[in-house]
């Protein structure tokens, strides 16, 4: 399983944000865009073109799958998406990788911090 996950790493920023948005619950497209903006505190805005291009690729790769979760008042063509088992594993692996990067960066950047005089 591990080699299958490693071939997806590292994740592109848009992919990472989309997978992170879907980590909690299933969502439809516009909600994913909103969630990405919220997570990044407005610094990363995902347009529909970029979002659905990524969703198309992620579903093809099997990281995201369509979920049946339409509510009664939803638009009839609205679709919900969620992380697949493989997607969750890839996201976890990416977070671990980033954690290692951050730890490594903290260790190396500590001496370079400017000293207070």
């Amino acid at each position, binding site marked *: 399983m591990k080699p299958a996950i490693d071939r997806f790493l590292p994740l592109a920023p848009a992919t990472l944000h989309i997978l992170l948005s879907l980590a909690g619950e299933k969502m*439809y*497209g*516009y909600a994913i*865009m909103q969630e990405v903006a919220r997570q990044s505190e407005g610094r990363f*805005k995902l*347009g*529909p*073109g*970029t*979002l*659905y*291009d990524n*969703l*198309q*690729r992620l*579903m*093809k*790769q*099997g990281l995201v*799958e*369509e979920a049946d979760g339409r509510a009664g008042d939803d*638009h009839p*063509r*609205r*679709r919900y998406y969620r992380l*697949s*088992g*493989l997607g969750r594993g890839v996201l976890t692996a990416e977070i671990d990788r980033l954690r290692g990067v951050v730890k490594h960066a903290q260790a190396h950047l500590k001496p370079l911090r400017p000293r207070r005089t």
Partner: protein
Amino acid sequence: MLRWLYIRLLRAHPAVFRQRFGHEMLEAFDLSIGPGEHWQLVLDGMVSLARQWILRPEFRQPWQPAASAPASRILSFQQIEPYKPHGIALTEGGLMAVLLIVGVVNAINLGGGKAAILPIGMQRPGYGIFKLSRADFEGQPWIAVDAAQDREDPQRPFARSYFRALPVLAALDADGDLTISVAEIANAPAVLRALDRNHDGKLSAEECGFLPPGDFNGPPRLLESYRRDFMNSVPVLAVLATDRSGEISAAAIASAAEELQSLDLDRNGSLSPYEVLPHPALSEAAGIVGRFDIAEGGVIPVQGTPKEDVDAAFMKRLLAAADRNRDGVVTRGELILEMSSVREIHRLQ
């Protein structure tokens, strides 16, 4: 307006992507607020359009999700959503196709004169994509293409009947190909001598094919003029019957090859049907003889043109040129030859 533009952008996406995500992208557009955000989405749509067509060829095939193990051991079925284009979309598409065709047709019709706006169409002279002018071809070698090589000469059926009707032509054209070849021209004296039935060394009009009217009771002089007219009406005979008698003399028979070559207007050595068939020059020559042959001798003196005639200067030059044997008189045959030459020169110019 922006929504309309965004819908057009979505419709321009590859079909598989559009059918799968088009409605969701439009929903995202509708849920976003403010013209600034809408403009951003339009730009995002443009980028997406380029990305899908240029960078995502693998996704133009019908979309298939990756095979994944079912969450439970219960059999799962995937429902394929049937897609049918909307009637309005079909109507719009048809209308746009008609407008496009009308536009292209108009562009072709008007393009010749409006290169800056419509760079196609060359119906009317004007500026076009290719700036060519007649001057560009000056000095270029011309290539003549004979497209009508295989087509039968329209004069040929008439020539066939004509050659059969006239014993002289039938005899000269030994191989029957309606062309008197170089060899046949060279053999002309022997052929003509063979036609001399009375062995007087000359060929009369009757020996050349003239048939006098059976019940003719007129004066002999009139019959003589008929004979001369007959001899002058056939170019091959007219060019040989150069003396006043209207017959082909022994001397003319001996020099028949040289005389016949004078009919070779295209200088290819042989006589084609065009060169031996009756020519409009015959009637012109007959008109001139009738007008200036005052003595009714069948010939016109070169210097005998009345000075008061309105065409005196022209006629003097014409008769001087037509008098090929320089005997001071022009026979009808010589006149026919000269008129044929003049006509041919005009035709070639």
